[in-house]
């Protein structure tokens, strides 16, 4: 890992840091949205969308450092997290809706 990091050009280090920062921005925005939004459904919006893109951006930023298989694994993790995020968002929203209708 250290070897490949030393071999990286300045441009790719810059790009990777930029992508990591963008990912961080979306995570922070999602967290702030979760605190600010009025009801649980709106909070789900913030968490699902911002975090899946934030993780994607961080994964893209990390891809400059890994070899082929590690990058593939990172991509796989991102896809799984995104899919499970959107599915669990829907399940949570449905659960909250049924609770709301009951009350």
């Amino acid at each position, binding site marked *: 890992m250290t070897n490949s990091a030393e071999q990286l050009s300045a441009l790719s280090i810059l790009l990777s840091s930029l992508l990591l920062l963008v990912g961080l921005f979306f995570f922070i925005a999602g967290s702030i*949205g979760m605190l600010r939004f009025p009801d649980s459904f709106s909070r789900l*919006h913030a968490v699902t969308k911002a975090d*899946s893109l934030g993780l994607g951006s961080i994964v893209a930023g990390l891809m400059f450092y890994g070899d082929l298989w590690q990058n593939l694994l990172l991509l796989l993790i991102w896809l799984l997290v*995104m899919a499970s995020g959107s599915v669990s968002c829907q399940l949570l929203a449905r659960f909250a809706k049924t609770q709301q209708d009951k009350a």
Partner: protein
Amino acid sequence: MAMPTQGAVFIRYAALGAAFSLCWAALTGGRGWWFFLPLCLLLLLWCYWDKLSLPPVRFKAVPGFLLFFCRQLVLGAWDVAWRALAPGKKWAPQWQRYDVSMTQPASQRLLASMVSLLPGTCAVNIETGQPDVLLLHVLDGDADWRSGVAALEQQLVKLLCNEQRQGSTL
């Protein structure tokens, strides 16, 4: 419902096996294939027994779909990040209904899951009826969310071959 031919079944399971071996290679860095072979056999047996398979897709439509999806993902995240960070209330949550034209339950579930990543919408439920209705929570009722969902549905219809046929298991 037409039974798929032997060749189609073989291709489908071969593709599944290829996907599994890709995952294994990513996990292990391309080692340990002697252990993977029996494991892959077990996995294919499981998929056969649980009637799981890859959804048949039109390969021509894949790049366009991926492009569309990534664009919508970025737009959706940016939309919600902007609303979260901008001063003042930038939201007007509403419940909305959307008539789904896709007929397959599996495709409808896929649509509902993907809608949650689109700008401003979050799927809550699929109510079966004539036609099926997707119950959505919309972050800003005044924004134009309907065209986004319609575009996604159109892309999905283009992508999935079995929108008219049966046998999809997703």
